[in-house]
């Protein structure tokens, strides 16, 4: 990360310009009825920008790429969510954004040291077990939410970062293999497979099949990383077996899928426009109405549709802001994921972690965007950062924190320490040479 030449002030200007231009668009093209509401939104966006930038300044990191990008996306998301139907600051989403930023820092601090994670991975397994228990015993009828007062938590969202962590943390022990039958398998990989199976079974039991592909994708990445490590040579046989097994599992899942899934897999949305295809049809009509440039913030009609701010949020953004703006926002999230390619991880644990995070984000984005636009079956998952939902936002924040940790950022004091060490060793070498001469 320290290799990037992105200057702090330049990034701040870019960030402010982005948000100010969006607010300008809201003012010019949007349906601003109450100027006070617009001012509140402006205050919240710029306030969050300033406060977070000051905090990150105090951190004295050497670079801020991911922090800036996350802040940029979150405030874009806050503007989007505050303009659906009418222009009014979405306090709920503002809180979610703040929680996302906190979760990001927490994720970064908790996952950056791979030695600590490796030693304490038993606690991650315990946390997963705890989340399992909470889903089985404390969730509502739909087996998704735990409601405490006016707050609702979705425990399955928190399993994602935990699962990625165990995938990454268990990879170091890969060389300690046991012979089971004809196969050499490491103990940790075996445990990971069992955990993965339990997660898949739990998702199936909860009817939360929207999250299942995300976990599947993370697990596939974990498998791929295991094929690469530690011999740095991909076993073609292992890849072939894994591919055949994967296809087999997919076919079995397709055949054995319950009726409500089969219905979704085969629904002709236009033939069932006012039934199972209602949300997607309305989403596509909304996207068409918005065109490239949108109908203006607050001028859309998709806000009347159920889950307009979560499951079909991409279409709602397209309608009000246009396909161009919505695509650019998605591109911004992709650029955030691409930072991993510019700042490669320093070790294999971080590499696995970043691959898992990327897989999780990409799969969830695919399910949401392509599902709501009828390219693939509609599963009803949230779009990272842009959909409402505190649990989802916190989980996404934590994942970005993991991404940040995976890029091995250095802090100013660490850089100074290294510089001093370098200077000292240079001096002692010089002394040695003089003494020798």
């Amino acid at each position, binding site marked *: 990360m320290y290799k990037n030449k992105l200057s702090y002030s330049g990034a701040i200007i870019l960030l402010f310009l982005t948000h100010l231009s969006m607010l300008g668009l809201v003012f010019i093209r949007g349906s601003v009825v109450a100027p006070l509401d617009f001012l509140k939104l402006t205050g919240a966006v710029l306030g969050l920008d300033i406060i977070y930038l000051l905090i990150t300044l105090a951190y004295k990191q050497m670079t801020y790429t991911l922090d800036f990008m996350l802040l940029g996306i979150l405030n874009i998301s806050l503007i989007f969510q505050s303009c659906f139907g009418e222009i009014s600051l979405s306090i709920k989403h503002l809180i979610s954004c703040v929680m996302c930023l906190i979760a990001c820092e927490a994720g970064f601090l908790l996952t950056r040291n791979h030695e600590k994670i490796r030693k304490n991975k038993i606690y991650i397994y315990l946390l997963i077990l705890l989340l399992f228990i909470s889903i089985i015993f404390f969730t509502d009828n739909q087996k998704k939410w735990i409601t405490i007062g006016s707050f609702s938590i979705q425990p399955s969202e928190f399993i994602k970062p935990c699962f990625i962590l165990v995938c990454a943390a268990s990879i170091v022990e890969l060389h300690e293999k046991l012979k089971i039958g004809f196969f050499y398998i490491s103990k940790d990989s075996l445990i990971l497979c069992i955990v993965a199976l339990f997660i898949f079974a739990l998702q199936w039991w909860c009817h939360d099949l929207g999250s299942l592909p995300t976990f599947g994708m993370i697990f596939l990445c974990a498998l791929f990383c295991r094929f690469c490590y530690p011999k740095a040579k*991909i076993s073609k046989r292992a890849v072939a077996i894994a591919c055949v097994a994967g296809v087999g599992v997919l076919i079995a899942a397709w055949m054995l899928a319950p009726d409500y899934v089969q219905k979704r897999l085969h629904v002709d949305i236009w033939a069932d426009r006012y039934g199972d295809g209602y949300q997607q049809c309305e989403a596509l009509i909304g996207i068409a109405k918005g065109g490239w440039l949108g109908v203006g913030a607050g001028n859309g009609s998709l806000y009347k549709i159920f889950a307009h701010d979560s499951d079909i949020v991409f279409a709602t953004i397209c309608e009000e802001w246009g396909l161009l703006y919505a695509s650019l926002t998605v591109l911004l999230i992709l650029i955030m994921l691409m930072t*991993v390619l510019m700042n490669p991880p320093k070790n294999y644990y971080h590499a696995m972690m970043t691959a898992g995070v990327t897989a999780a984000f990409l799969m969830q984005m695919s399910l949401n965007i392509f599902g709501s636009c009828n390219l693939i079956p509609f599963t009803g998952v949230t779009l990272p950062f842009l959909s409402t939902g505190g649990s989802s936002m916190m989980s996404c924040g934590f994942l970005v924190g993991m991404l940040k940790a995976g890029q091995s950022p250095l802090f100013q004091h660490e850089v100074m320490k290294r510089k001093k060490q370098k200077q000292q060793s240079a001096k002692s070498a010089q002394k040695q040479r003089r003494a020798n001469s």
Partner: protein
Amino acid sequence: MKSIRRVQKLITFMLLIFLMALAFLIYKLQSEAGFYISNASKISLGNVYDRNNDVLFDPDADAQIYGSDYFIDIGNLIGDDSRQMNNTLVAQNMGMLANFSFMLGEQEDGKAAIYTTLDHKVNRKVYDAFGTKNGCAVAYNYLTGEIYICLSKPSVNILNNYSDLDTLESGSLLCKVFYPTVPGSTQKISTTLAALESMGYDNLISKSYDCSGVYTNLSGKNIKCHLADGHGTQNITEAFANSCNPFFAQLVEDVSLPLYDIQKTYEKMGYLVNKEGNQKYLDINGISAFTASTTLADKTDFNTQWGCMGQGETLVSPLQLMVWQSAIANQTGISTYPYLISYATTVNGNPVSQAQTSYSNQMFSEISAGHMREIMLENGRNHYSNLLSGTDVGVKSGTAQVENGEKENSLLVGFVDDVNFPIAFCIEIDDRKQGEVTTSDITRVLLQNLHESLISAGE
């Protein structure tokens, strides 16, 4: 480090797949936006015009502007945006008619419009010519494919906003031109073509069969002629003009005309024979039009023979009957496909979707088409010389028994033998009785008025 690089490659691969899918989605969304918007509950639409710029559909139409029954003749053809009728020009082309572009969004004062090939004034005259009778009429240019006349009675007055749905006659919401009907003796055109293809003209013309009013076929069933005393001994030209059932029953039974050959010619012409395969439909700018279907089981079987004469299980749409005429009139054996939309304009007023003439595959040989043309022209000269003064018209009439023989529909199909007025047509009158308006009367109104209209327009 090699392993880490591989993980980076994996990440790059995943990102690329996602980006490609996103690019595909964007392309799909912008290219299908017209379809999506056509399904919106409320969207600004443009007008539909006829070839003389008469309005055929106006989303803001009311009786005070246009008159109470201005749209009655094209109600179930052009339709409207109420979604009460699906197989209409407006319902099938809402995307084209929407005042919308993906770049500009919805434009209330947009210039989106559809310009059709119809001649509304003549269409209305033909509609009125039906008088109290119901039926349908369709006529087109067999060289270019432009449909000039297309109507179906009873129709629906869209200006009533469907408040009279309970009192509407059955079939008012369907344009019968596109739907299957029993073709009656007009089917004998197809059977004669099959015989020409199989036997050749010389062999066919040399055949003569006797008609004494009733013919007992090889399976012992009686085939009756409409002339109780019979037509005596006839060749194909005479039998075609007389529409003699016993002649055609004997022709089908003739050993030199294998059933397989009839089936082959029928299939080439677009029939679904013996329900083998999928029913074919013609696409008229989104409007789906039935082609034809029949059952051919056994040469000696009554139903097969009856089907070859256009009764029983044989069904053809009036549009298809007309389209076959183009292959005969052009002497090519290739049909000219009809169309309704001449061109459309976008929301900016730019012309798009300019119509182009398209053709079917070879259905029968040019020689067969030429002989069939002569047989039909001969029939026209001898029996229908007053359809259009000074011009030969090739025709075939038909009487179709429907509702178990309780009603008889009257049909007339044909073409005008004039390169300056190349019109093919099909007229059908429901349940026609003696003394009522005839298909010839309606054809006369159609051809004469259309001729005047096209001449005055300098076409």
